Every structure is written in structure tokens, then in C-alpha cells.
């Protein structure tokens, strides 16, 4: 037998995807005002989740905006028209992002009272000696643990939560303040919700847009919270919200809405029930849009926000006296429901 073994070892910086390697790949799509408009409209037609719910006739929008697109327009004029078209969706999760501007729609919060004064929270409630446990700023107030979570984009860990739960021992309850929390990672919301339940529960349903018809969706998928493996808290909880509690904060409010030991207080959340997905236009601009719908256990779209159990408004009179009406109401609630 004339057999032999060979081995080869090569470590080299080499070229990938250059030169003649492109010949089997088609050229980039045409970059013109018309092609960018068509691409954006089509992508949203296939993937945007709320045409039906918001009663938006996207084909009528096409007719209206297509006439504003012409080949001679410069990129800023194109950006303006595309931004106006996206604003028809009335969605805080919809943006057009270029190197010179980012379109956005903030109607979900700007038309409503603020119901939050961060300085007031720090000066009158957190004080100078509050604890910073990861992203969770917290203080014990009248035997209640007050936790201010300003952004779900700031990650929390089980160790942070274990620390908070240790502080909660012997206290009357927990206030979680997500007012002005514009969202971030839903995983952080799920982590926090998981320490507030003793057993798994379904808190809503979600589905993804999968086709060009406004009613083309995947099947509804249950959204579930499973209890954390470590420490958990089964006492009373008040969640403070306002219209600027958006996206992941909206989801967090949904997670807690059905819990018997949780009361939502303040103002309804701002919405943002769809998962934002991203894409890129032929001219390199990025866009963001809601790709899914989420409903609560009663079938209500969370895009419209989560309705609080006890509406409380921040009184300007209280504010002038250094009092946060909503925190005071939460403290009173926990005192009376202990």
C-alpha cells in the first residue's frame, strides 16, 4: 500500500470578498430618490405591524407621498419626505436615521402631562445617601423600598436584585418607579419581573408581521414570566408609570399588570408594544420600525399603552412644596394594604 499522510497549516491575512469574487453577487440596488422611496415603502408594507390596528391605509400613503418624490431632489429633501411618510405611522419605534438627522415621532408622550420631576425624586425622596445597586437607585422611605429605574437600557443582574430583595426583608412593600424610563432591553424587564412572582405566568401574547397584507401575522405566541431561581419577593408592589414609560417599560408594566400583588399607579404608559427591527435603504440610511404586535390577556394592544390601576397626577402645588404626589400616593397605598 502506497499510502501517506499530509497536513497543511496556513495562517495568513488574506482577501475576502474582493475583486473578482463579487462577480456572482448582484450589484447594489439603484440609489435614487425613487428607489429609496419604493424600498422603504415596500419594506414597511411587508413588515410593519400596526397598519390594521391604527387604521392606516399604507397604499393611500404611497399615492400621497410618491408624487413628492422626483429624481432631482437632494438628500435632505428626500429625508424630509420619507420622514413625513414615516410620521403617518404615529409610532415612537419608527425612525429614519441618516448621517445628518434622525426622524422621530414623540406624539405618544409630548401631548400629555409629564407627571414626573426627576430633581424632586432625588432631592425629596432618594436624598444624598441613596444606594446605587447597578442601575437601580434605591432608598428606604417609611419602611418601603423605593427603587428608581431610569432606563431599561442599563443592564441589571440577579446579584443586583438579590441585594434589593435582602433590603426588602421586614419592609412594608416595594415601589418601582419607571416614569420617564423610555425603554431598553426587555430582558432586564423580564429579570426584574421574575423576582416578583412565585410561579410562572402568561402575561400577554405576541405575533410578528410576516407578509404584505395588513393582517399577515404569525400565530400568537404566549409571553411568559418564570420565577427567578434565587430570592423572590411576594409582598405588595406599586409600579409608578407615566406617558414616558415606553417600549421595555411598557412591556414591564404589562408583565406586572396581571399580578394580584402589584398596583400600577400614575399615568398610563406611552406604548411601544412592538419590537423594533432595523433595516437599511439602498442609500445607506437606516430605518427602524415596529415588527410585532403585543396584546395583554384581554386582547388589548399594548401599543396604546398600559392602563394604570390607580390614576394619580403630579400636582403642581405639591411639586412646589417638594412633594411628589404619585410617590406619596404609592406610600399611602402600601401603608393601607400591608
Amino acid at each position, binding site marked *: 500500500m502506497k499510502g501517506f499522510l499530509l497536513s497543511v497549516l496556513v495562517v495568513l491575512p488574506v482577501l475576502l470578498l474582493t475583486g473578482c469574487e463579487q462577480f456572482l453577487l448582484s450589484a447594489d440596488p439603484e440609489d435614487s430618490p425613487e428607489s429609496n422611496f419604493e424600498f422603504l415603502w415596500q419594506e414597511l408594507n411587508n413588515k410593519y405591524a400596526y397598519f390594521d390596528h391604527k387604521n392606516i391605509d399604507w397604499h393611500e400613503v404611497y399615492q400621497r407621498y410618491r408624487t413628492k418624490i422626483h429624481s432631482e431632489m437632494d438628500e435632505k429633501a428626500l429625508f424630509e419626505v420619507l420622514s413625513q411618510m414615516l410620521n403617518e405611522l404615529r409610532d415612537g419605534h419608527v425612525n429614519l436615521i441618516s448621517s445628518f438627522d434622525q426622524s422621530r415621532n414623540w406624539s405618544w408622550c409630548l401631548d400629555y402631562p409629564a407627571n414626573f420631576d426627576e430633581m424632586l425624586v432625588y432631592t425629596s425622596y432618594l436624598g444624598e445617601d441613596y444606594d446605587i445597586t447597578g442601575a437601580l437607585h434605591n432608598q428606604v422611605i417609611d419602611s418601603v423600598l423605593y427603587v428608581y429605574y431610569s432606563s431599561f437600557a442599563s443592564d441589571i443582574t440577579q446579584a443586583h436584585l438579590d441585594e434589593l430583595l435582602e433590603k426588602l426583608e421586614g419592609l412594608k412593600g416595594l415601589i418601582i418607579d419607571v416614569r420617564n424610563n423610555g425603554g431598553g432591553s426587555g430582558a432586564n424587564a423580564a429579570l426584574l419581573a421574575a423576582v416578583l412572582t412565585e410561579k410562572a405566568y402568561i402575561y400577554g401574547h405576541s405575533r410578528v408581521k410576516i407578509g404584505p397584507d395588513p393582517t399577515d401575522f404569525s400565530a400568537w405566541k404566549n409571553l411568559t414570566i418564570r420565577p427567578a431561581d434565587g430570592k423572590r419577593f411576594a409582598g405588595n408592589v406599586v409600579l409608578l408609570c407615566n406617558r414616558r414609560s415606553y417600549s421595555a417599560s411598557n412591556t414591564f408594566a404589562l408583565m406586572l399588570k396581571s399580578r394580584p400583588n402589584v398596583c400600577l399607579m400614575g399615568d398610563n404608559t406611552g406604548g411601544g408594544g412592538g419590537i423594533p427591527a*432595523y433595516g437599511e435603504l439602498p442609500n445607506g440610511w437606516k430605518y427602524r420600525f415596529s415588527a410585532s404586535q403585543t396584546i395583554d390577556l384581554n386582547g388589548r394592544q399594548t401599543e396604546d399603552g398600559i392602563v394604570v390601576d390607580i390614576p394619580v397626577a403630579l400636582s403642581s402645588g405639591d411639586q412646589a412644596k417638594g412633594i411628589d404626589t404619585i410617590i406619596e400616593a404609592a406610600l399611602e397605598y402600601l401603608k393601607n394594604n400591608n
Partner: protein
Amino acid sequence: MRDKSVSPLLYQNAALSVFLSYEHEGPKKSDFFQFNTNRAVLSNQYGNTMLYRDFCFKNYSLYKTGQARLKWGWSNNNYLIFCEIPSYGNFNKRLSYVTSFGPALCYVECFNLFGKQLKAELPLDLQVLGFYIRPSYVSDSPEAYLAPNGNRISAFLASAGAFLPNQAWNAALNPGFSYILSSGNAVVIQYHYEYLCINRPEKLSKSSGIWTIGIKAML
């Protein structure tokens, strides 16, 4: 590379590649195994970037024919491609996997030039059957948003599909030229061209050409 679940634009750049190969040549059959990994920061014509990494394990089993210069047989290709688009807030990490089988052949020509022993080889393969796992534009991270306390593996497995002609393509061509040393070892220069295309759920197409210079050592 172009992944239409991310962008209609072509992303390209130079990459850092590592190859490790093993070949066993018997009287009737030769086996060839190759591990290859590539790493790059790809960018499109507007400068938007994508972090790219792949791991590929390929093997050929080739049989000698009546024609001594031609060997034929079958091949198996296993591909793991990881992309990350840093500027996308969600669904920015995308993992694709392909396992496929198909015919392969290798043409070998040995000759002498100025008294030196040289060998030219042209292996090629065409993958025709297998399976792939591809994320759709919303089936990868952040799975936690869709299913808190769930894991990404469930989303990953939900994206499996059959690798069949017309739905997916993978072909490779690796022409090489060896200078045989007196010890039996060889210095090899080789060009590795590969094309991969998966049409579903949204088209991924990838074309790569890699030049390598290496040492072939007898064990």
C-alpha cells in the same frame, strides 16, 4: 456578502483567515479534511459596518478512476456564520448554519520544470443536499423580548430549512500549485473560491476568494 434580512447592500472587506488541513491518500481513495475560519469587519459603500466571523469544516472523499489524473467522490461542508451589526439596536446578532453534501472531483497533474517536481491540483465541489438554520429579520436576538426567560436556541432551531437545489447553493473551487521538496514536504500556493447562497427566509449570498501560501508536511 449580502444578507437581505439585514440590508440590500453588499458588505465586503479583507479578512484574517486561518486554515488547517489534513489529507490521507490511499491506493484507491483519498480523504481530505479542512478547517477554516475567517474574521473581518465588513462595510458597505456608505461605511456602515458589520462584524463577520465564520467557521467552516469541509471534507472530501475522493476515489481514483481509470484516468489517473482524475479523482471523484463526495464532499460535506459545514458552515457557521456569525454577523453582528453594531448599529442595530435589536436583532443585531445573526447566526446562520449550513450542513450540506454533494459531488466532488479533483484533477491532479504532476510534472517537472527545470528539474523540480511540481503538482497542480484542481479540487471542486457542488453541494446539493442538506439543511440550514437561518435567522429571519426577527428570529434572532433579542429572543428575551419575545419570550422572556427563554433562550436563543429555541429561536435558532425554529429557523431550520432544507438545503435543496433552487433554494440554496454552495460551490467551491480550490486550484492549487505545489512545489515538492526533496523531503517529500511541499510548499503550496492555493486559491480558495467559495460561493454560498440561501434563498430563505431572506436571501443570503456570499462570495469569497482566499489566497493561501502554506507548508504541506508529511506525517
